[in-house]
């Protein structure tokens, strides 16, 4: 494992994985949910994570995001060991995530949601003596992000009045507000209509090429188009890792997973 | 929404009342009654309130053509609320004198304010030693007792009665420690030995069982306690239930067998020794007359709380008569109190000009069964007990 300072913004050399989860094992009680899973993501890679319900996708996600400390194994972010770091530290190291179930500030407006994320991203959250309104850089970047993601129409709408699809978009917008190196997306199209799914797909595809993506997705078609590589999890184990084509053609995957669709 | 309107009306009325209350007749002498009408000592406050009213009924509600108006304020049994209440009496109601105060915490809290305002205060219960000692004030007179005064002579007396060892128990607060320390001093000086002591937390002790086990283990000749009110009842009952009654003599500051609680302790209290400035069984015409009157009015025995409040009313009226109803010269009123001397239900008493504390008899009483009831019978009298100045330089 290289210990170069690859975590510095601007993405490290291509031979250092920007995200490296090594031999992650975790149990809940007697249930083995993640069994020696290893993931390596190169900078700018778009990586898909699939598997049936209970395959341990979300657990692995939470381990990478820092919500759960694994029983064994390690997580490195840009060469830095973050296995024991809290989620907020990882976020500050450039790891952002969306949630499977919308996890927003529902009684605040879109603008306020994005400004909160912006305040953290601009590292001004601790400023207690200067009015928030006067931190123009924060609000400006919130607005430009909204524009970039097509949320400018609803900037001053309270989140709980938004449609589900728009809330889902905001979910990702909040993560993007941090200007992360790595973005973890947990089922970005879950519960969406076909139109909303298409819009979401377009939005993800339009993300900057330098951004590393790890996406859990149920909709195979979404992943096959988006991902450079895919990891198939099954009962906590890695069943297969490869390109979308390899996964699509794999007999095992067909019988175990695609067949179930 | 009707509720809102009612609330608005209540608030408006509240503000209005604040502006109108002070406008009262000039000629009346106003006496502030500062008692806990609510809170933990609410019952005692009511007891003293009734006795003060009775006192002014008996000794006059008029002095030199000036009527006497009582203005009442609630201390809630809390120091800060008590301080707010005394300010209210002095500033808002503009009273000429203040009478009352049950708890020593409230007295400690109001002391500086009362002293600074130069308003005479007649304390009807709270027994903090330092209020008529180190922190004494020319404006604060006490008709009840000081904690030390009640138990000082009890130590030597108990030792003289043949009790060689004692276990001390009181709640862990200033009054508790004052009582125990005073008893210990006298008891040890007369050859007694303290074999153990326990100070349960005030207000948080639900059960004396744990402490009784401790007493049992220490095996003293007597256990000397200071508990009053609910805890006194509880202690006596648990004492009997744990089978201690026949093994160890229970004794204490006399609230243990006070008229207020002794009947509720019932047979469990029989044999208990206490020292106090008043017991209903004092055999004097003054006491019989007072008890008769109190029983007629309230259907129960008058207590030491009632007596102190009643005597306070008498002291105030006598002093005001001496000044010819003049309340402008407050110092003259206090001075007049020093000259007042009378025999009340509890016996002869006067105010000690050295400390402003009362000089009075202290009685030792033992509870005995009387028919199907119980009562404390006087066994010994310490006459005219007077506190040393304790650092007071009046």
């Amino acid at each position, binding site marked *: 494992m290289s210990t170069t300072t690859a975590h510095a913004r601007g993405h490290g050399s291509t031979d250092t994985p920007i995200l490296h989860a090594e031999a992650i094992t975790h149990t809940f009680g007697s249930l083995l949910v993640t069994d020696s899973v290893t993931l390596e993501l190169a900078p700018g890679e778009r990586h898909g994570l699939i598997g049936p319900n209970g395959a341990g996708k979300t657990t692995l996600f939470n381990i990478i995001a820092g919500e759960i400390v694994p029983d064994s194994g390690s997580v490195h972010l840009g060469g830095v060991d973050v296995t024991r770091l809290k989620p907020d530290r990882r976020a500050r190291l450039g790891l952002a995530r969306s949630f499977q179930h919308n996890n927003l500030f529902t009684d605040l407006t879109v603008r306020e949601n994005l400004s909160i994320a912006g305040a953290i991203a601009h590292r001004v959250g601790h400023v207690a003596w200067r009015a928030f309104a006067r931190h123009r850089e924060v609000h400006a970047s919130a607005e430009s992000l909204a524009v970039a993601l097509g949320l400018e129409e609803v900037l001053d709408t309270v989140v709980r009045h938004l449609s589900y699809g728009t809330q889902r978009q905001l979910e990702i917008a909040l993560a993007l507000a941090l200007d992360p190196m790595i973005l973890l997306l947990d089922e970005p199209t879950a519960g969406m209509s076909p139109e909303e799914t298409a819009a979401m797909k377009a939005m993800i595809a339009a993300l900057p090429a330098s951004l590393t993506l790890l996406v859990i997705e149920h909709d195979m078609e979404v992943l096959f188009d988006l991902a450079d590589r895919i990891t198939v999890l099954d009962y906590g184990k890695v069943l297969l890792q490869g390109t979308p084509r390899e996964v699509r053609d794999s007999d095992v995957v067909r019988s175990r997973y695609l067949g179930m669709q | 929404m009707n509720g809102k309107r009612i609330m608005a009306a209540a608030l408006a009325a509240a503000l209005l009342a604040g502006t109108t209350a002070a406008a009262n007749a000039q000629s009346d002498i106003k006496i502030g009654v500062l008692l806990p009408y*609510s809170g933990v000592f609410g019952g005692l406050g009511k007891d003293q309130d009734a006795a003060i009213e009775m006192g002014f009924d008996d000794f006059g509600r008029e002095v030199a053509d000036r009527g006497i108006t009582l203005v009442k304020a609630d201390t809630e049994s809390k120091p800060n609320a008590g301080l707010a209440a005394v300010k209210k009496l002095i500033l808002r109601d503009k009273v000429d004198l203040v009478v009352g105060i049950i708890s020593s915490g409230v007295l400690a809290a109001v002391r500086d304010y009362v002293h600074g305002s130069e308003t005479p205060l007649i304390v009807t219960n709270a027994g903090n030693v330092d209020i008529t000692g180190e922190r004494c004030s020319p404006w604060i007179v006490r008709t009840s007792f000081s904690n030390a005064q009640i138990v000082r002579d009890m130590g030597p007396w108990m030792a003289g009665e043949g009790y060689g060892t004692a276990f001390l128990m009181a709640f*862990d607060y200033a009054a508790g420690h004052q009582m125990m320390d005073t008893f210990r001093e006298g008891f040890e000086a007369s050859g007694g030995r303290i074999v153990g002591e326990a100070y*349960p937390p005030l207000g*948080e002790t639900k059960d004396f*069982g*744990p402490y009784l086990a401790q007493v049992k*283990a220490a095996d003293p000749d007597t256990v000397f306690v200071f508990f009053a009110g609910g*805890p006194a009842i*509880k202690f006596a009952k648990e004492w009997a*239930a744990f089978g201690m009654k026949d093994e160890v003599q229970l004794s204490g500051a006399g609230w243990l067998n006070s008229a207020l609680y002794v009947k509720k302790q019932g047979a469990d209290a029989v044999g208990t020794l206490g020292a106090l400035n008043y017991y209903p069984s004092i055999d004097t015409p003054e006491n019989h007359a007072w008890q008769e009157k109190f029983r007629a009015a309230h259907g129960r025995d008058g207590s030491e709380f009632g007596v102190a409040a009643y005597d306070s009313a008498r002291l105030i009226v006598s002093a005001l008569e001496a000044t010819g109803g003049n309340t402008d010269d407050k110092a003259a009123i206090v001075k007049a109190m020093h000259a007042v001397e009378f025999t009340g239900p509890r016996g002869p008493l006067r105010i000690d000009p050295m400390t402003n504390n009362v000089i009075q008899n202290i009685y030792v009483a033992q509870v005995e069964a009387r028919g199907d009831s119980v009562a404390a019978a006087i066994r010994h009298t310490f006459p005219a007990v007077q506190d040393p100045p304790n650092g007071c330089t009046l």
Partner: protein
Amino acid sequence: MLLDPGFLIVQTLNGLQLSMLLFLLSIGLSVVFGMMNFINLAHGTLYMVGAYLALSSVRWFDSYWVALVLAPLGVALIGAVFYAVLLRHMQRQSPMRQVLVTFGLIFVGFDAVRMVWGALPHTIPIPAALDGSVTVFGEIYPTYRLFIIALGVTVLIALHFGLERTRLGAVVRAGVDDRRMVAALGIDVERAFFLVFCLGCWLAGLAGVVSAPVFSIFPGMDMSILILTLIVVVVGGPGSLKGAVVGSFVIGMVDTYGQVLAPELARVTIYALMAAVLLVRPQGLFPVSQAH
């Protein structure tokens, strides 16, 4: 002292007796919290009212046993009225509001008791059959206190079987685990809430009656017991039946022994214990998993 077996026996029985009293109080509070997600701060008031109703029953009927039956029923009735008049209409509002209403009731209850029964302390006599003492392992111990322990154990066993064997028990167990699931099963949750709430009130009233002959009855007796009960619930883990049992036992014992072994700290022992438990287990000893 600790080497004196007599001291240990008496002290342990004292601890058990307090534990049982706390159990009667905390079990209702905890289950109501588990099912309805609100803490009834007027629970101590119900306990106090139970003691006062016992006082009145003894005055009228001259029998402790009548009081033991009537007073808890009276308290349950008060609880039922309170539920019907206030709580039922607040079901859909935030639990915080319900808690606040019960907070207001503490003040109302305190003064109401003073108005009806006066502010002076009272007691009721120990029933003749239980008066006196028995010898336990060579130590004299009050019979009535043994009765409290026995009563607590009886209630504990009855509740255990009630929960395991009855339909209401099944609903309660399920409701503590996952309220939505119970509702989804089409069970009349409302009715179950009501019954559990009344049962909790009944138990609080029962605790008030049984403690009346040992402790004195006075306005304000509700506060100290309320805090202690809340501590039991929190230490055990709100909503957990096992937690209420273990919490009562731990707090009862620590309080009883702590007062004598560490008198200097008597006032803080329990608080320190609770703080320590919460720092190690932020959800109490037996946390109830918050099912999604």
